[in-house]
């Protein structure tokens, strides 16, 4: 598009401009601007991750300051753990379930918010609030609402025959995982909504008008205009959500501590237990590294398949 040419034109010129602006080199300036980010990141992410990689090569009972170097045996042990594979399966289930649900619900809310004309501002605020309410509070409210005696959702569910009158739904093996996914999605779907809604609002009305003139129905307009236009951000939002959910720890831990009977023990829960309850920090780190590798491979495949970055103009 025309604007693109203008932009790239300017970009090429700039090198020489800045040189004449009395700057040593554009690249140095560029790197200088991102230097604070790099420093922060080194400090808070890179170093700890490197430390974790390093620690994964040791046997580390956390309550003892002595580390024993064991090479890759932690990795071997992790890969031989039955609980690791079942946690991977549950974690995958949690990730996929959450991401799909959040995508659908988030998209749905965005579409509705974009179309309604009454109370839009208020409803948008309401929706966004869900995303901003701290997880701790979400968990507390959820626990309160699922309380066996006075929990409104518990009562609703048992009246519907979903679970027994005296069954704590979050403590029920069949219900724990779906409920954790649902509660997480209550909070996080809005992440998708924010992205999508912003994008939806940017779609020029004339596209729809042109389609209406062509005789397109609402569904056809959605399929042919809305969806392609928001595809780019959806792909990004899905990627981010999937990564976040795969590593999600707090909401599960606070709701179920990985229970009942391991029904919600995803990998982060397992790693946490391994480190702090079973006191094997090295082993937990090996788990984290393996998780990281899985995620990186997954993300790589995702990029290869959909290339979300390309969908978003650089």
């Amino acid at each position, binding site marked *: 598009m025309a604007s693109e040419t203008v932009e790239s034109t300017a970009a090429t010129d700039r090198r020489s401009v800045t040189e004449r602006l009395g700057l040593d080199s554009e690249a140095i300036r560029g790197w200088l601007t*991102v230097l604070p980010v790099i420093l922060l*990141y080194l400090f*808070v992410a890179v170093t700890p991750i490197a430390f*974790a990689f390093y620690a994964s090569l040791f046997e580390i009972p956390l309550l003892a300051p002595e580390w024993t170097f064991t090479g890759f045996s932690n990795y071997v042990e992790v890969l031989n753990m039955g609980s690791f594979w079942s946690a991977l399966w549950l974690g995958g289930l949690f990730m996929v379930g959450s991401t799909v649900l959040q995508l659908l619900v988030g998209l749905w809310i965005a579409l*509705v918010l974009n179309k309604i004309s009454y109370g839009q501002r208020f409803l948008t605020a309401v929706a*966004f609030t869900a995303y*901003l309410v701290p997880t701790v509070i979400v968990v507390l409210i959820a626990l309160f609402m699922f309380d066996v005696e006075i929990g409104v959702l518990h009562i609703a569910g048992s009246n519907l025959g979903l679970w027994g009158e005296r069954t704590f739904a979050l403590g029920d093996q069949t219900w724990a995982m779906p409920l954790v996914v649902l509660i997480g999605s209550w909070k996080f779907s809005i992440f998708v909504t924010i992205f999508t*809604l912003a994008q939806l609002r940017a779609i020029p009305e004339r596209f729809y008008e042109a389609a209406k003139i062509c005789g397109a129905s609402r569904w056809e307009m959605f399929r042919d205009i809305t969806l392609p*236009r928001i595809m780019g951000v959806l792909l990004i939002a899905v990627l981010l959500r999937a990564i976040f959910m795969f590593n999600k720890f707090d909401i599960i831990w606070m709701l179920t501590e990985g229970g009942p009977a391991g029904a919600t023990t995803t990998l982060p829960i397992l790693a946490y237990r391994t480190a702090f309850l079973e006191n094997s920090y090295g082993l937990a780190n090996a788990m984290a590294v393996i998780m990281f590798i899985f995620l990186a491979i997954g*993300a790589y495949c995702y990029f290869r398949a959909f290339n979300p970055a390309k969908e978003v103009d650089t």
Partner: protein
Amino acid sequence: MSAPTESEQRLSYETRDRLYQVALYGSAALFTFIILFPIYWMVQNAFTDSQAVITEFAWFPSPETVTLENFSVLTAGAVPTYVINTIVVTIGTIVLVVAVSLVAGYGMARFRFKYKESFAQFLLLGYMFSPIVLGLPLYLIWSETGLLNARIGLVIALSAISMPFAVWLMWKYIQTIPESMEESAWIAGASRWRTFWDVVVPQTKPAIVACALFAFAIAWNDFTFAQILLPSQDSTTFAPGIMRLIDQGGYTSWGDIMAVSFLMTIPPLLFAYFLQEYLLKGFEVRTR
């Protein structure tokens, strides 16, 4: 095009439109209910006598049990400290995130340098490592640098994890600001830095709000980092604080918890209500 009789056509169209409106507002009502109900439940119980909360189930607050008593928890014990710490940390995080990502986003949008894309992708990699095991190294680094128990230490940590996304957002947003505006300021004699302040920053407001919101969400929400990095009672924030409260007593009043939760839900609501336009504009990443 086939031409059904006029009345038929109009009817069917109108019916369809009505159905659509019903579906639309029905949807809105449904998700509003889903989102609001827990919040309503929280508010309702925040205003209910704490004994009644656990013994009597009621859909609506009844005059006999309505009370403001639960809110006394807000002035009791360490709760005010927690809340103030949370506010301080959140504001600090927002300021740091916005400042750093603004400069970095500008640099990435306006300077040409190698490995820019790789840098962006590298930042994303940081999100892929499960934070569960990072507590110990973080603790070690923080105690080494004296940042432990300092709110600024938590601010730094939270800023860093908000950073990849914030930088990306700023980068994309600044690209949409026509460069000719800066050029015209240069021609008017303004230095690059001055131009950044006078021309770029004011126009980046929506992205600033969006980044601020994102940082807000992270800081306001944070449990894990605060738990590890602010162990002392005086410096800790709301989320770990309330968990400690719950844990200490052996028994916690749901009414109190709901009252505190209610308080913590108000700022986000205001944020969302008053800044949504900016926010949405800031999140508007151009696709294709």
